């Protein structure tokens, strides 16, 4: 799965630290890599007061970078996403490998035009004259009492737009490997960090390694049903799989990892063996990734399906604030189990 040499040293890191390490190693490797965004260092312009790296990123994923690479490669920005995302795209088109951070994906509407009409289309419109090695870091995920404008998992739009790629790392290992791959990639890539995973620990090789974009992975093998998880939902799937195992239902769990390109092949191969599919998606249902995967499977594995390809998603509502509401908003293992039971019962 990695393109690098077999790693020699592996430690436990948090998801947050794995992101940080990937940024650091890529900036060490290639001096054209720059990163910009709001508070990625923090306290900008106060070096004379001894204030450097005051914040280290809103979720501390960029901590330490300004100290190592200086404020010409780690750039705090004014609160102007259209300007700095567009600027990063412009820099990427002229020789930099530019990383920009959009604090929450919910805010994408203020800079969407730059992503849709410049990043995604420039290479095509220009007949291949330009490469845009641009990575946008952003955050998804509900469950933190942050209400409708800070909790979305708005990635389907990025799958939809030709010219963009997207990844959804689900643990420290994939967080590092996919970020390195994203930065090295010559196409624009949106990298979705999940707020609920920052503290998760897991083994991460010390050496830089890239996980190929567009490849999903099987995190649990099974024969009765294929569960596809996206980002944190992968762990909702494994939790459901544990439950189901107790009832004798053997679920295979696939971690999508990339939202563009989507690894339909791995999913279809799995469904051909399990004959059943549930996609678990934290986003809302209509025109979702879950829909897309179900449609593709229905189209290409039709004769192998013993039950309707099914979805467990958030409901078609904005994200509510109050706990009892937000608790039911986010898909959970019980809902996955319930759905699987219905499908398995069909025989």
């Amino acid at each position: 799965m990695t393109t690098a040499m077999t790693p020699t040293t592996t430690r436990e890191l948090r998801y947050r630290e794995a992101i940080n390490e990937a940024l650091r190693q890529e900036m060490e490797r290639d001096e054209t890599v720059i990163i910009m965004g709001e508070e990625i260092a923090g306290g900008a312009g106060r070096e004379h007061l001894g204030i450097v790296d005051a914040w280290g990123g809103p979720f501390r994923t960029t901590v330490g970078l300004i100290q190592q690479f200086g404020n010409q490669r780690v750039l705090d920005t004014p609160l102007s996403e259209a300007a700095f995302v567009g600027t990063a795209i412009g820099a990427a088109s002229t020789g930099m490998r530019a990383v920009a951070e959009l604090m929450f994906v919910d805010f994408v509407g203020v800079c969407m035009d730059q992503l849709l009409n410049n990043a995604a289309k420039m290479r095509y419109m220009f007949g291949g004259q330009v490469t845009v090695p641009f990575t946008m870091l952003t955050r998804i995920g509900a469950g933190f009492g942050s209400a409708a404008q800070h909790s979305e998992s708005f990635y389907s739009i990025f799958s939809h737009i030709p010219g963009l790629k997207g990844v959804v790392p689900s643990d420290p290992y994939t967080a590092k490997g996919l970020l390195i791959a994203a930065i090295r990639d010559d196409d624009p890539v949106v990298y979705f960090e999940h707020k609920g995973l920052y503290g998760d620990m897991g083994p991460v090789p010390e050496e830089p390694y890239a996980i190929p974009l567009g490849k999903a992975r099987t995190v649990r093998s099974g024969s009765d049903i294929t569960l596809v998880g996206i980002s944190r939902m992968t762990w909702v799937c494994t939790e459901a799989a544990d439950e189901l195992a107790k009832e004798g239902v053997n679920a295979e769990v696939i971690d999508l990892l990339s939202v563009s390109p989507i690894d339909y092949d791995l999913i279809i191969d799995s469904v051909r063996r399990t004959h059943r599919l549930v996609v678990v998606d934290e986003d809302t249902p209509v025109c979702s990734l879950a829909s897309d995967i179900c449609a593709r499977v229905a189209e290409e594995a039709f004769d192998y399906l013993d039950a309707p390809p099914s979805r467990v998603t958030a409901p078609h509502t904005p994200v509510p604030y109050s706990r009892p509401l937000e608790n039911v908003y986010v898909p959970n293992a019980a809902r996955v189990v319930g759905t699987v039971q219905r499908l398995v019962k069909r025989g």
Partner: protein
Amino acid sequence: MELDREMLLHLYRTMTTIRHFEERGIPETGQRGMSGSVHSSAGQEAVPTGICAHLTVDDYIGSTHRGHGHCIAKGVDPKLMMAELFGRSTGPNKGKGGSMHIADMSKGMLGTNGVVAASIPLAVGAGLTSKLRNLGRVAVAFFGDGGANQGVLHECMNLASVWKLPVIFCCENNGYAESTPVEYALSTARVADRAAGYDMPGIHVDGMDVFDVFEAAGEAVRRARSGEGPSLLECRTYRYYGHTVFDNPLSYRTQEEQDYWRNRDPLKLFRERVADGGLVSLTELDQMDEEATEMMEDAIRFADESPLPEPLEIYDDVYVDYPKDMMKRGINLEV
């Protein structure tokens, strides 16, 4: 400036209510596990207070993520706000919004807003309604020094100026956008400098001094109400705490700076200013502080005793009219 006794009392009461709401309500919200995105406006009380003192209940305001002060100054009941922060059904938003989305349409309060600068066009739209329907209302768009660098503000200043809308663009410049100092992020010395590019007055006032804010706002509101068009009013102020409850502001600013501004506390300045005037006594102000203390205890009790929403209320109020079975299709939240 001559203010009558009633106005003086109103100004102080509003400020102390805001202060008490922030000091008491925010930690209590945190203790209920809902602290994620709550932003204290303690220190900034003079701005919404001085401005909203010129508004009637029919006038409009659009607010920000740091909006408790705006709500209170515009007349939203702190008890209901507390319920909203606690995620209760009795909140004005029925617990669906929380701190960053408190709205009270019956008070012309068009919502606190979690996207920086996003409520500015809403206020401009309310100003347009007022103009087209001859309602004589004004609309105030609040935003921060960070928000001053968002493109939508500039588009809105241009549009409101072209259409001569009754809008006041009010920048609460508290020196920081999260950890980013305004002197780094703003390319000009003052946000108010930008007004000239839109053919509107740009006024810079001491946002710790409610009298200063009140006076400048009076002129901007007069201008708006009389059809002369929008103004940009920049109020230099300071927030006492971190951006949210999570950060330590000393990581990006100095103790000296904090002390300087604390020493210019809007309630303190008010007391100093009125001390010799004879119109109100400090004892009366103490009295109002105590009332505010009690009000918050009541509010907390009210909120705690209020019911939480039922889980399936999640489907309510997405639309006025939409087939519910469509919304639930394929979704089984009751498992």
